[in-house]
């Protein structure tokens, strides 16, 4: 990433939403291009070389998932999708297709900017340093040593719990969907046993969170998946 002005592409058919998203991003120092349709958006994505794409999933001229798959063919640009509250299935499809994050309408400006910052930072540090140490709260995960400590006490994790934590750590800050977690931790044959995942996630919280009923790091994205929230 150069020091030039970052470019954002906003694919959204509603002018008023475009207006405030644009205003918010420009205040953060982004140069914003707008597309009203998906077709136009794809062209802009190819020609403007954006550093961020914000995509409304409910566009009238096509399926947002196709857009994501198309862009992912040639680019790793962060994509944040906007979606209505009741469409959890769409969100999972979009995330699995390669979107980085999602926002539920109606959403606030503060929330939007937080997601944008998080996505861009992930891009700047490509992946998590898989040989380094990750810290959230008083928990430290030493990936190389395969050692997890909380308040400097060694935490004993079972192999499955560790694998689960690793998938979340590798995608730190991002939403990891339930199907993806099942696939990566248990393998493709367990795609139906989503309650396994929830129970193991409960175990992880028991071991790593101060109050498992009010987690601060291992967050639930209800009906979509989980997110490891790292301090900004």
């Amino acid at each position, binding site marked *: 990433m150069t020091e030039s002005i970052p470019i954002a592409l906003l694919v959204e058919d*509603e002018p*008023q*939403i475009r*207006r*405030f*998203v644009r*205003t*918010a991003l420009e*205040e953060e120092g982004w140069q914003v291009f707008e597309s009203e349709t998906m077709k136009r958006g794809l062209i802009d994505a190819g020609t403007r070389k954006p550093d961020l794409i914000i995509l409304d999933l*409910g566009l009238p001229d096509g399926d947002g998932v196709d857009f994501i798959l198309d862009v992912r063919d040639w680019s790793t640009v962060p994509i944040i999708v906007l979606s*209505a*509250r*009741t469409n*959890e299935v769409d969100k999972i499809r979009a995330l699995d297709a390669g979107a980085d994050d999602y926002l539920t*309408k*109606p*959403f*606030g*400006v*503060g929330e*939007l900017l937080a997601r944008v910052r998080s996505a861009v930072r992930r891009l700047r540090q490509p992946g998590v340093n898989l040989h380094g140490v990750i810290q959230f709260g008083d928990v430290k995960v*030493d990936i190389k*040593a*395969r*050692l*997890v400590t909380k308040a400097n006490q*060694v*935490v*004993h*994790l*079972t*192999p*499955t*719990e*560790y694998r689960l934590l690793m998938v979340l750590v590798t995608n730190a800050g991002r939403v990891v969907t339930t199907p993806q977690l099942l696939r990566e931790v248990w393998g493709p044959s367990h795609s139906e*046993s*989503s*309650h*396994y995942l*929830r*129970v193991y*996630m*409960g175990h992880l*919280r028991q071991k790593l969170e101060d*109050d*498992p*009923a*009010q*987690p601060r790091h291992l*967050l*639930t*994205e*209800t*009906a979509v998946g989980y997110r490891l929230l790292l301090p900004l």
Partner: protein
Amino acid sequence: MIPTNHPRPDPDALLAQVQAQERRAERGKLRIYFGASAGVGKTYAMLTAARKLHADGHDVVVGIVETHGRSETASLLEGLDVLPLKTIDYRGKAITEFDIDAVLARRPVLILIDELAHSNASGSRHPKRWQDVEELLDAGIDIFTTVNVQHLESLNDVVGGITGIRVSETVPDTVFDEADEVVLVDIPADELLARLTAGKVYQAQHVDRASRNFFRKGNLIALRELALRRTADRIEDDVQAYRIEKSINTVWKTDSALLACIGPHSGAEHVIRSTARLASQLNAGWHAIYIETPQLQRLLPAQRERILKTLKLGENLGATTAIRSGNDVALEIVNYARSRNLSKIILGRSLPTWPWHTPHLKRIAALAPDIDLTQLGLASSGLSQTAEESNAPGVTRSLAQPAADKAESASTRKQRQWHYVWATAASLLTAAITTPLLLYLDLANIVMLFLLTVVLIAVRFGRGPAVTATIVGVAAFDFFFVSPRFSFAVSDFQYVVTFAVMLVVGLITAHLTSDLRYQARVASHRESRSRALYEFARELSSVLQTEQIFEITRTFIARTFRAKATLLLPDDAGLLQPPPLALGELSKNSNMDVLDIGIAQWAFDHATAAGIGTDTLPGSHFFYLPLVAPMRTRGVLAIQPESRRWILIPEQRQQLDTFAVLAAIALERVHYIDVAQDALVRMESEMLRNSLLAALSHDLRTPLTSLVGLSESLARSKPPLASAQQVLSDALHNETLRMSNLVSNLLDMARIQSGEVKFNLQWQPFEEVVGSALRASQSFLGRHEVQTRLARDLPLIHIDAVLIERVLCNLLENATKYTPAGSRIVITAEVSGQFLEVAVVDNGPGLPVGKEEAIFEKFTRGKRESATPGVGMGLAICRAIVEAHGGAIRAGQAAGGGASIIFTLPLGMPPAMPDMNESGANIGNHAP
């Protein structure tokens, strides 16, 4: 498992027991006072018991009690509620009868009905009183009644044999056996005779005659023994039933069904009764069969009538009946027994026959060595037959064949006379034609020509004319051809051999040919019967409307049974509607025969056939057959047969039953086509509503999203707004959020109410749902303290996490709205029975008393005119969601003041979990 020597009770027997109990629970209870003869004190005992119940405050009513002028008995009636009798006009005489409709209207708890075996005057609903009793029992009314041993159907002929007097009024044994209680009223013979002499049984003028005939001491002792034994049999059944119930398992008899074979002789009834008795002792099912051979076709009408009556008797005693046609009686019997797996065959004693004739018993024994055979002794002969010989017109050719069953008209009879004339003429013609040929032909060839004539006549006209042709032919041959010609004298003795051979060959030919004809006819009837069924089924299979079923059924019944028929279908309330068109036609064609909707309704409600040939209103002109489909009774088929006897033929009934089932299934199918169409319409309207909701939701949310974002942008704009404007923009932002929340609630409510929400049910740890709900509620929880107290090791719960999260958010929001800042909100969850019980409790002012239920209704808030925002939609949604999950929600006051809202969710059966004790070292043990 503890090993046990007692085998487990047979589940089928237990199931039968349970079903019988269920039936009994709805039915009234029947208690029978059972005695050896009149005068033992049955009525007295019954009345005494009834008075006692009446004194205890039970609703006891006297339906009908015969006091026979006995003053002791009459005095017991005092103080009891006696129902008035119905007066029936019977051939100018007024007869009083028991009034069943009055009882059904009065609906007493217990009713006394004397003399169960009584026959009702014609014109009553049922011909027999025991049928009235059955209907009252079905209606749930308890009944006390009385019966003498001689009135029991299966003992009827035994008693007749003992006393020499046969009674015509009988009660089926099933009624006696299925009675809930039987009380034996017993006194020694001497005491009964003393009572008789004292005039306590019959009034003085009858005493003498009665004691001479019936009340002989020997008779009374024998009857008493019969009554005691019959009661003992019953008690044994009770013991057995008790044993099954209490699992005191003993030997359980395997089902061995019996087959009673009856002939045209008077012993047939004896066979039926004996088999019925045997079957009930063996606790086995049984069949009764009559084989009709060509010989038996020539029976007198009275005899045929008796066969049908005997079969009907068998049916009343619980048999499955059938008539089979065939040449070989033994073979037909064995085939029938084999096809129905009947292991015992019961026959009457054969009458003496020709010495070369093998008795059926031997034939059957040879054909089926594995089947048990029982030959019964002859019934005590010389008994007066009570069966009133019917004066049904005409001769029927065959019992089993409907086409031939048509009453033979005068023209047919004349036609048959002509057949004989033709036969005679043909033989004479043969003689006339062959006479000129005598020069060219040998006598042997002329004999052949005569025989050819016989064969042709036999093929054309059957046995009788063929026999005539043979005899005339032999005579003509002798007269015209054998010398001396033109005389019946015979010169050469060898011609006598010729005559004899000619006669014998002719007769055998006639016999064989007519048998063949008979076989062919039986086969063709069978074929036409199955073809009729096939065609009926095929026609019905393509039907799409009820009217078509109507028409097809009418046509086929008319064609196959030569009977007028119509269908009666129920309306939505289950009341049968007269067919508008068919009824008119029927009444037009037959001036006196009126379709009785009342009987049809009875048949429909009871799913039992009524009318001609049944136990219910046999005086009717129609036969009412309920159309019983798998799901429910679909209507009634009313048939007006040409002959009343017609409906008694088992094969006819069976085929008619099959027709009825086919029609019923077709009606049901058409019904479900309608149901499916309704469902389609409903589905389409639902789809429309859903797309409407989706569009509405999109159109409302999009501008709201803009508003939320724009108002926030305004608040964040640079340079910062002046403080007054900042306040305005914050207010704008908050109101927009409220608006957005309201719209979400409204849309959710609409979705849930329309039943459109598809639950995404997953097994969830409840802790996680609480966690995400708390996070989603952060924005308004800031000024409140929230605690969670979840029980350890809560099971997984099967819920839609998004919706339950919404419930928790709404409850939290509600708690923050109605409590001052700084209040404490506690979420608890624990297992309570089959439910997870979740409570959201605050320490605020609490709910208004008496409004705990109202707050869950739409558009209600805790207090009227409150300044606190919200339409109270949130709690209504909570209730809708919780109830859709199979739980319940309620509000109450918390222990330390404050509001408490508690909801439950069913636990269900959580799925299996993976093995938590994973093999391999824990990760933390891998020290660097």
